[in-house]
């Protein structure tokens, strides 16, 4: 068992699960989407990105790319939330919430790709 692989797998999966947890529920209802979960998703996603630094394999490069996409989407979602909650005069309207959640939905897709890559990597490792 390689501890590095455990930590890596943990963060990749945690990023996906947190993202999923935030995303699930009626897209326009602020009550169903916890902002703490979004925060956790951003932080874990960033850590997962850093963990992917410096991997020279092809699959490592794709890992890094998907992670960067997830970061970008989640940070965009966080900014959209900040705008709605703090700057916009209308507050957290259903439309604003839908924007935040759909952005995080995009990140969820990237995270799913990450998880698939992780599984592919693991399976091909066992075959060798």
């Amino acid at each position, binding site marked *: 068992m390689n501890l590095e692989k455990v930590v890596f797998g943990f963060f990749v999966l945690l990023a996906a699960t947190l993202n999923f947890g935030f995303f699930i529920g009626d897209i326009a209802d602020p009550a169903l989407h916890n902002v*703490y979960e979004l*925060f956790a998703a951003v*932080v874990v996603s*960033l*850590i997962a990105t850093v963990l992917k630094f*410096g991997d*020279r394999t092809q699959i490592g490069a794709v890992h890094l790319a998907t992670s960067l996409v997830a970061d970008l989407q989640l940070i965009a979602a966080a900014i959209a939330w900040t705008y709605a909650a*703090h700057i916009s005069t209308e507050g957290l309207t259903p439309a604003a919430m839908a924007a935040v959640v759909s952005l995080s939905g995009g990140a969820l897709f990237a995270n799913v790709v990450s998880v698939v890559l992780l599984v592919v990597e693991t399976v091909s490792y066992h075959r060798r």
Partner: protein
Amino acid sequence: MGNPLLSFWYRLFGQNDRPSGRLRRPIPMASAVQASATIFLILRRMRVPLVVLITIFAVSVLGLTLIPGRTPEGLPYRMSFFDAFYFMSYTASTIGFGELPYAFTDAQRLWVTATIYLTVIGWAYAIGSLLALVQDRGFRQALALQHFTRKVSRLREPFLLIVGYGRTGELLGRSFDALGRRFVVIDVESERIDALDLDAYHADVPGLVADARDPGHLGVAGLGNSHCEAVLALTNDDEANLAVTMTAALLRPDLPVIARTVSPVIAERMHAFGTPTVVNPFDRFGDHLRIALRAPATYQLITWLESGPGAELPPRGSPPADGRWVVCGYGRFGRELIEDLQAEGLDVTVVDPLADAADGTAEDPAVVCGHGFETAVLEQAGVAEAVGYVAGTDNDTSNLSLIASARRVNPSLFVAARQNRPSSGPLFAVMDVNALLVPTEVVAHEVFAQLSTPLLWRFLQEVPGRGDSWAAELVDSMTELYGRHLEALWKVRLDHVEAPALTGWLATGEARLGDLLRDPDVREERLHVVVLMILRDDECLLTPDDDVVLAPGDELLLTGRPAARRALETTMVVDAAREYVVTGRHVPASWIWARLLPAGERREG
């Protein structure tokens, strides 16, 4: 060919046999992979500091949002993520705008106190790691290698690959730069590569600190580049030169290689790989000394031409033709020189402190054991009756004192000396040595003569066979033309590319050299050039006179001032100028005027 320097160069020494297309063998570029590996390693090492920083930030922000605060009105209040992130950002980066949006409660202050220390540690750790990595030797080398690789691969002009940037490399670099040629340098010593930046070259010279024995480094330096013209192995390490020769011969058999060595054994081993040109400064000096003994004017001419444009005419020596020579120092240099002197039929006496131990010395030359400063040794060696004296040890101090003590005994000696370090140059200059060997300069001149223009090298090969009085005449006519400083030497080929205007005239079989060398402004005057040689079908005609009939495809080696060169080029390219030069008739140069003239006056080129 947008670069005027480049097109100039092409016109000068343009060769049509440039290697083009795909190269036969893959050239290893291992070191480039190493470089990117280093950068990946750096990224990998940044993982922990970055994760620590992100975690500290996340924990601090989360804590701030969870701890209850109070508004000035006393209402309960919680910071949002936005406020918390904003607060942490300016606190962690030590900007500190104060407690926003409302004054903190004691619980919040307690937490903030903890986070301040945490974030300071996080930042210090991350920035410290980053700075340490930037300072990292391996990282810097990797960056330098990548920079170098990029520069070399972007070279779109012919360039020389110089391995070893010592004194020889520097001299050559300056000469080639003056000619507008590009080169790339590899050396193991970083100071020498740093010196590249300080030398004021016209062109940008990529330099790499690397061991050239690694084929990967040579590959990065452009061995695989199709614009690479030649490889020069000029390090002072014979083994490294051999390795470079070998690598170049195996990976790029089409490239000319010039290698320097002082050991005949290494030279043999180099010749086992392809056909490298091996320059042994000791051997060459011996050859030069032989020429100097037999034909002083020939020697003068050769050294002058080899020194490159701008060089002052060296004085013509008057070495003793016969008599006995005393050679101090029986090392590699002494051996080579004694062989040459004996081949000239001269008596040689050897002085060496290890004379008895040195094998082979006892055979024919008279041998004296000693340093050569001692009165007894000087007497025993017969310095007082000798005509020539060679101070050839590998130590400049002893060479200088050898000369001084020998001159005291016999002031009329012809003294040849070996200068090992460039810093001793002024001392040897004051000593006024008759023939001075500076190995680095011998190599530089030799390589320059071979690479600057191939015809010059051919010419120099022919010169010794032509006798002393011929050389003296040539030196006289050159000094008469432009004084005691050598002007440019250049080559022209009389074909339809370089001399389109001459094609028809050359085909008539009446094209005399004297007509070609008339001034296109005033044809009664002769251009101020000296034709050193005409090369026709691998046969050379040295210093041809004006009646020589030129043929298409002839190659001419000329020397003269730039103005004369431009004038000659005009004659070669412009039909009207050629017509005037050959026949004295003015014909229109422009198309319209040529149409307007009566048909009878037109002449088909």
